[in-house]
């Protein structure tokens, strides 16, 4: 049956709780309900298209002052859904709001920002305390702009729930119950002709299974779910069902570099050679998440960044013989159990992972079986999700199987992995760099990247970092983390795809999914 414009599009993504109907876009949990649909960024940066930029509430921008000053030209003629005009003052207000309430500053932009001021009625000037090119993504794409005339009246935006959000976006909140959020199209949206899908519903799913069943029974045409055996479970159920899982980051083994035996690069390399990543992908993830490259570059998404020399040096080749010889050269000997031993100690390791993600645990179990074949004993410890977070943040692990968020280019993930300032001593919370890697040379490279807008310089820095990855192996990338995305083409067209990756498709990406729904067209 065809879908008419008034047939709502039901969105399907498990969040494990009921909706609270609070629409603060700066609240880590609530932001997905408003950022992208109701509130909008200055510039949309597409991670899947090499950080391709689309002007949004800003029509253009310019760096100056040694990449320390960023000037936005603000779009005119845009109106808030309550009819009041949108202006540069709203943008300045928003940035200063984040300064006033650090609890709202999820991306810590004020760690490098020095000031935010308006220049005339249509320009906004952001001054940084140092060259901050990579921060463009955070200030332009990740800060939703809110209306000053309403937000200035909120006594405490951290705790006061926003029940009736007013934004500039393509959608307005229609109604919210604990079980469902419903948006309707903004009839006066500044992008003419958009949106064509008039109503969106987002039911609250308490468990993955129900969300999957909802999708599989055809009640939703837009899913963001991990679905086991997707071919038979979903694709075969209904004509037009399809999926696309674009990779965007790495799921890696984070070795604890501060303690033996993982402070020994030979052991880390042996592990990498001992992993048959393709099989791990097939068994642990139904092949959804492709095998990762030891260089850390996610392909095909960031193919252009890959350093062929580094790939040649280590690549992702599965080579159990090489793994064994590396260990033997390092002084390890096989004992009667077939496990390597040195100084009387078996090479026995424990990997922690999020026990709540069955796919990760399964992948670890496959790794355990593979490493056993090269004489490394790996015990899998699927830890309850909060404990897991505590453990990896504070460095209480030997190996941790985990992901970083990444960003619109590989640099973001590399910086999270390798920048020593992101780390912290064992026992304290490290924002990232959980393996506790510390190299002044690498820090210098990362700092240098931040000061340049030259693509050539950036590429040369990234090439050097990839060499560090394969030679020092601070992180062992295993699989590529993908965006979970299911759709039905018989009901809607305009879905993002490998051929046209205009936005990250998963519903938990902000503001991307707002961009996706703007592009959808119901089939009459």
């Amino acid at each position, binding site marked *: 049956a065809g879908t008419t414009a008034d047939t709502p599009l039901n969105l399907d993504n498990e969040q494990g709780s009921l909706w609270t109907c609070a629409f603060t876009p700066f609240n880590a949990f609530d932001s997905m309900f408003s950022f992208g649909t109701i509130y909008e960024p200055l510039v949309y940066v597409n991670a899947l298209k090499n950080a391709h930029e689309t002007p949004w509430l800003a029509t253009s921008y310019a760096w100056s002052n040694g990449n320390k000053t960023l000037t936005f030209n603000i779009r005119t003629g845009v109106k808030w859904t309550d009819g009041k005009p949108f202006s540069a003052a709203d943008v300045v207000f928003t940035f200063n709001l984040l300064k006033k309430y650090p609890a709202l500053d999820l991306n*810590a932009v004020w760690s490098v920002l020095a000031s935010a001021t308006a220049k005339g009625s249509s320009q906004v000037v952001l001054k940084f305390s140092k060259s901050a090119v990579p921060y463009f993504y955070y200030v332009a794409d990740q800060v939703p702009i809110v209306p000053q005339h309403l937000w200035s009246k909120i006594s405490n935006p951290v705790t006061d729930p926003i029940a009736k959000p007013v934004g500039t976006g393509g959608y307005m909140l229609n109604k919210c119950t604990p079980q469902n959020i419903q948006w309707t199209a903004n009839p006066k949206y500044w992008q003419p002709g958009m949106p064509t899908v008039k109503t969106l519903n987002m039911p609250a799913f308490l468990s993955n299974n129900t969300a999957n069943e909802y999708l599989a029974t055809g009640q939703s045409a837009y899913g963001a779910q991990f679905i086991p055996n997707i071919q038979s479970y979903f694709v075969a159920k209904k004509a037009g069902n399809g999926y696309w899982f674009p990779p965007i980051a790495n799921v890696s083994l984070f070795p604890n570099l501060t303690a033996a035996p993982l402070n020994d690069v030979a052991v880390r390399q042996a592990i990498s050679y001992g992993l048959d990543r393709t099989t791990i992908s097939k068994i642990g993830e139904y092949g959804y998440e492709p095998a990762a490259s030891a260089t850390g570059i996610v392909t095909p998404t960031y193919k252009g960044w890959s350093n062929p020399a580094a790939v040649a040096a280590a690549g992702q080749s599965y080579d159990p013989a090489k793994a064994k010889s590396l260990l033997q050269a390092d002084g390890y000997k096989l004992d009667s159990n077939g496990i390597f031993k040195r100084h009387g100690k078996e090479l026995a390791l424990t990997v922690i992972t999020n026990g*709540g993600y069955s796919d990760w645990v399964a992948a670890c179990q496959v790794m355990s079986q593979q490493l056993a074949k090269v004489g490394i004993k790996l015990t899998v410890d699927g830890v309850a999700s909060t404990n897991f977070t505590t453990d990896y943040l504070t460095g209480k692990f030997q190996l941790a199987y985990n992901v970083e968020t990444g960003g619109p280019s590989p640099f973001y993930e590399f910086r999270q992995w390798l920048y020593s300032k992101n780390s912290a001593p064992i026992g304290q919370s490290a924002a990232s760099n959980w393996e506790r890697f510390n190299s002044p040379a690498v820090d210098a490279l990362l700092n240098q990247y931040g000061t340049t807008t030259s693509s050539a310089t950036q590429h040369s820095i990234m090439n050097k970092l990839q060499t560090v990855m394969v030679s020092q192996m601070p992180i062992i990338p295993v699989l590529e983390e993908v965006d979970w995305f299911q759709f039905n083409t018989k009901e809607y067209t305009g879905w993002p795809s490998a051929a046209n990756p205009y936005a990250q498709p998963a519903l938990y990406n902000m503001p991307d999914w707002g961009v996706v729904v703007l592009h959808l067209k119901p089939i009459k």
Partner: protein
Amino acid sequence: MRFLARRIGFLLVALWAALTVNFFIPRLMPGNPAQAMMARFHGHINPSAIHALEVAFGVNTHESLLSAYFSYINNTAHGNLGISLLNFPEPVATVISHALPWSLGLVGVSTILGFLIGTVLGAVAAWRRGGVLDGVLPPVFIVVSAFPYFWIGLLSIWLFAVTLGWFPILGGYTETATPTLTWGFVGDILYHSVLPAMTILITSIGGWILTMRNNMITVVAEDYVKMARAKGLKPRRILWQYAGRNAMLPNLTGFAMSLGFVISGAILVEYVFNYPGLGFLLLQAVVNEDYPLMQSLFLLITFAVLIAIFIADIATALLDPRTRSNP
């Protein structure tokens, strides 16, 4: 009255114990809610957010345990349950008030139904001792009550919701409907509650059948039941007024306890059926280390159980004059 004094004494001590346990357990847990929140995002937000979250949740306030304890007691006494971290920034009371009706409706009704049906069936089975009902019901329900009920839930979803499509697969009502007080909406709620309610019912009914049957068998052998027959009373009256009533008394406390546990919801059933009740909320609160929510739910549950038992004791005293005088 010694009886009442004892009961009230027990109620107060148990309440205090629950309140205190409640205070300490979450505090003994490792990690903090900011980290828990990070965990929920599967790496979809910037790692720097952890600091923003810690500020938002007030994690790093260094209040002494003792003063925290007293302000907790004080706040609780004033009904101030704090703000839910999981549903930040909603107050815990609001979050609970959203979920409460669902638990009460689904679990409460099916618990009461289970008790009533089980009691009646148990009484009748014992009354017709050795009959077909007595030969079949108890063993069948004993076996059924040994089944993992979440598994029965899974099977029934698979069979009746997904495969046959007779019933909805999730939720307390059609997710896009607006809750109103109309027949249509009530019907919708009932329709959604059929599978979860049946799951609770068929796994809980066995216990009641069995205890009622066993009590009843003892009571039916009492002289006063024989006496009632000798008096030529109608069988119905003997069954309920003489045998049933007395056989039910020992079950009242158990019933009260199970009523109290309604508040905690049938956690696994709510989980399996995506039912928006308190049980699921509790599971979420624990997994996400939402201390205020967890504490309040736990407190609510304990409170409900204690009150229910207290009421059951009083009810027993009313129905059974003997307990009134004998301490």
